[in-house]
């Protein structure tokens, strides 16, 4: 029977029998990840995994350090991409059909409502997770040692997250979409407020020009919907993914996540060691030397860094998978119970009262109600510039990778939280109770309103307070902590005021139940 075995048919049969093994071998190259070598190879050879190192520092695996926030942001993005592509099957971006197709998705299409909810809440969840991720990176002092530029990329990703969310908000073409579009278009036009004051609008009307570029006309109409749709599904995601690639690439090039200098392992860390080595100590003393120890260059210190690294497969991959399923579960359960809003068809004649932007911009809308230019362009621009410059203005290289850079930082953060709350809430109370300059002097020129309004005063206070902290503690890091804490605080407080305490005509109400019926 030897002849049959060596015949073409015989070899073909054995190929079929061995299909599973030969396919796996071609896929994994180094075989199943059962030894340290093959576990390393699986990370290095896989296109999707190789952006991460074959080894990972134990500090990175500690849930209390990263809180998984960067990963959660990434997974939320993936969820919105998948659900977004599915929604595009039915959505039609024209003012005649947009509203009806979204309604169909909501009420007729199989699982349509769940997908739309997941898309909406996944996207808005990204805003929260990205801001929290930024806060984690900031408070653990992780924007230093070559990571300065990656912080800026992160700020750009935050802006893109806001932009994609906002452009998506306009697509259903219901009342919320339409009036958000009108308001955004006018914010884009708001530099006109300044050119008007300077009297140069006739020569240089940058505001109206930008508005026309955005809307494709002078009013929000079908041209505008096409442009917003293009921004939402093509231009902004494209830029987002490019920046995301750079963001991840630079994390790798910067040597992974930050870790505290005096990092200490625990006994329980033996769980990260796989297979036979587990019987030995956590990190066996009989170490081998590689090329790394021979080359004269900046290498990890012997007996320190190298030893606190463990294999990424399976430790990191398991943790990442767990975070993914956690994120997916939260989004699905939330979307199952909470519906994304859909109002009546857009009506250019009747604004909603109050006409509110999506919640993540209601803090800005509160500032907008003082001055369109400062609230919509001036102050957000200043805040983003300030955020981007943090790593360049605070260059102290101590206590990297330590939450709040130690005890004093915790105290400063708490102090700024209390002082900031008192000042901001006090300021808002004055504005709500007594009004502002125009209430007192109705004929006041617009220039004064642009220059002196509650938003500017608050930002001015934040800057002066941070300088005061720097002077008192003799540390720029402490000043940065004060400034950043107040920035987060003002985002939360202003968003709360805009969302819950502002009713029809943007008047103050303690709760929605007090709104007048109309």
């Amino acid at each position: 029977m030897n002849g049959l075995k060596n015949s073409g048919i015989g070899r073909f049969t054995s190929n079929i029998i061995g299909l599973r093994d030969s396919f796996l071998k071609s896929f994994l190259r180094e075989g199943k990840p059962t030894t340290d070598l093959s576990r390393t190879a699986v990370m290095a050879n896989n296109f999707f995994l190789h952006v991460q190192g074959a080894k990972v520092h134990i500090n990175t695996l500690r849930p209390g350090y990263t809180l998984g926030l960067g990963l959660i942001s990434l997974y939320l993005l993936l969820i919105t991409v998948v659900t977004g592509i599915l929604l595009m099957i039915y959505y039609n971006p024209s003012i005649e059909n947009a509203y009806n197709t979204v309604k169909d998705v909501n009420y007729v299409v199989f699982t349509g409502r769940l997908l739309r909810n997941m898309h909406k809440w996944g996207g808005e969840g990204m805003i929260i997770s990205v801001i929290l991720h930024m806060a984690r990176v900031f408070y653990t002092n992780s924007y230093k040692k070559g990571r300065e530029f990656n912080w800026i990329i992160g700020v750009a990703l935050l802006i893109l997250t806001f932009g994609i969310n906002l452009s998506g908000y306009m697509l259903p073409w219901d009342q919320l979409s339409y009036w958000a579009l009108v308001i955004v278009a006018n914010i884009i036009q708001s530099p006109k407020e300044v050119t008007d004051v300077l009297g140069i609008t006739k020569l240089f009307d940058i505001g109206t020009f930008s508005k026309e570029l955005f809307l494709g006309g002078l009013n929000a109409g079908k041209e505008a919907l096409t442009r917003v749709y293009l921004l939402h599904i093509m231009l902004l995601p494209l830029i987002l993914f490019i920046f995301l690639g750079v963001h991840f690439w630079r994390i790798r090039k910067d040597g992974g996540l930050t870790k505290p200098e005096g990092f200490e392992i625990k006994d329980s860390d033996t769980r990260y060691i796989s297979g036979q080595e587990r019987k030995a100590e956590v990190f066996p003393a009989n170490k081998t030397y590689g090329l790394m120890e021979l080359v004269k260059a900046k290498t990890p210190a012997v007996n320190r860094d190298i030893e606190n690294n463990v294999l990424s497969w399976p430790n990191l991959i398991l943790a990442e998978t767990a975070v993914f399923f956690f994120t997916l579960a939260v989004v699905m359960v939330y979307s199952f119970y909470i519906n994304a809003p859909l109002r009546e068809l857009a009506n250019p004649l009747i604004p909603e009262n109050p006409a509110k932007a999506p919640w993540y911009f209601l803090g800005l809308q509160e500032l907008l109600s003082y001055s369109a230019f400062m609230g919509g362009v001036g102050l957000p621009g200043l805040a983003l510039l300030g955020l981007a410059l943090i790593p360049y203005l605070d260059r102290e290289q101590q206590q990297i990778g330590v939450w709040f850079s130690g005890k004093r930082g915790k105290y400063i953060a708490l102090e700024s939280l209390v002082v900031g709350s008192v000042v901001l809430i006090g300021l808002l109370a004055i504005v709500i109770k007594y009004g502002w300059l125009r209430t007192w002097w109705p004929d006041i020129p617009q220039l004064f309103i642009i220059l002196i309004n509650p938003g500017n005063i608050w930002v001015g206070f934040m800057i002066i307070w941070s300088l005061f902290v720097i002077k008192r503690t003799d540390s720029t890091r402490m000043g940065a902590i004060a400034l950043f804490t107040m920035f987060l605080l003002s985002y939360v407080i202003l968003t709360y005021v805009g969302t819950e305490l502002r009713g029809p005509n943007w008047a103050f109400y303690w709760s929605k139940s007090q709104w007048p019926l109309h």
Partner: protein
Amino acid sequence: MSSETIDKTEISRRSFLSLAALWSAVLPAIALLGGIFRMVKPDVHYEESIRFRIGTAENFPVGTMKKLDDKKVFIFSTDNGLHAISSICTHLGCIVNITEWGFQCPCHGSRYNQNGKVIAGPAPRSLSWHEISQDIDGSLVVDASREVPAGTVLKLKA
């Protein structure tokens, strides 16, 4: 001028040519980007004309006000004549409502008096007064692209 300073300002043929080559690459790139931006600015507006007819004077008896919703304008008829006030809030473009004190914007709380002058809120400018004219056939024409000073009215020929 000493000869040394002249030496410094002199440019070698090699670096002149390099610079010229560099700029001949940079300038087209800028022009290209400019062209892309210009392409984005629309040359056709798919919108209704902002100069429109509103019928004859009989439609507007003295002492009345008409709100033309789709044209976003209020037409007032008084003893002095006719005037048109825009209903677009100068803050962020919401449509203002008429109230006992004048106009009120529902979006961010701007208030205007009966002449459209800002009296409260964030609006940077007063509501604009549009030009009204009477055509040769007697019909009234509002031109929303032309602003007239507040208080300008169209006296109707009797």
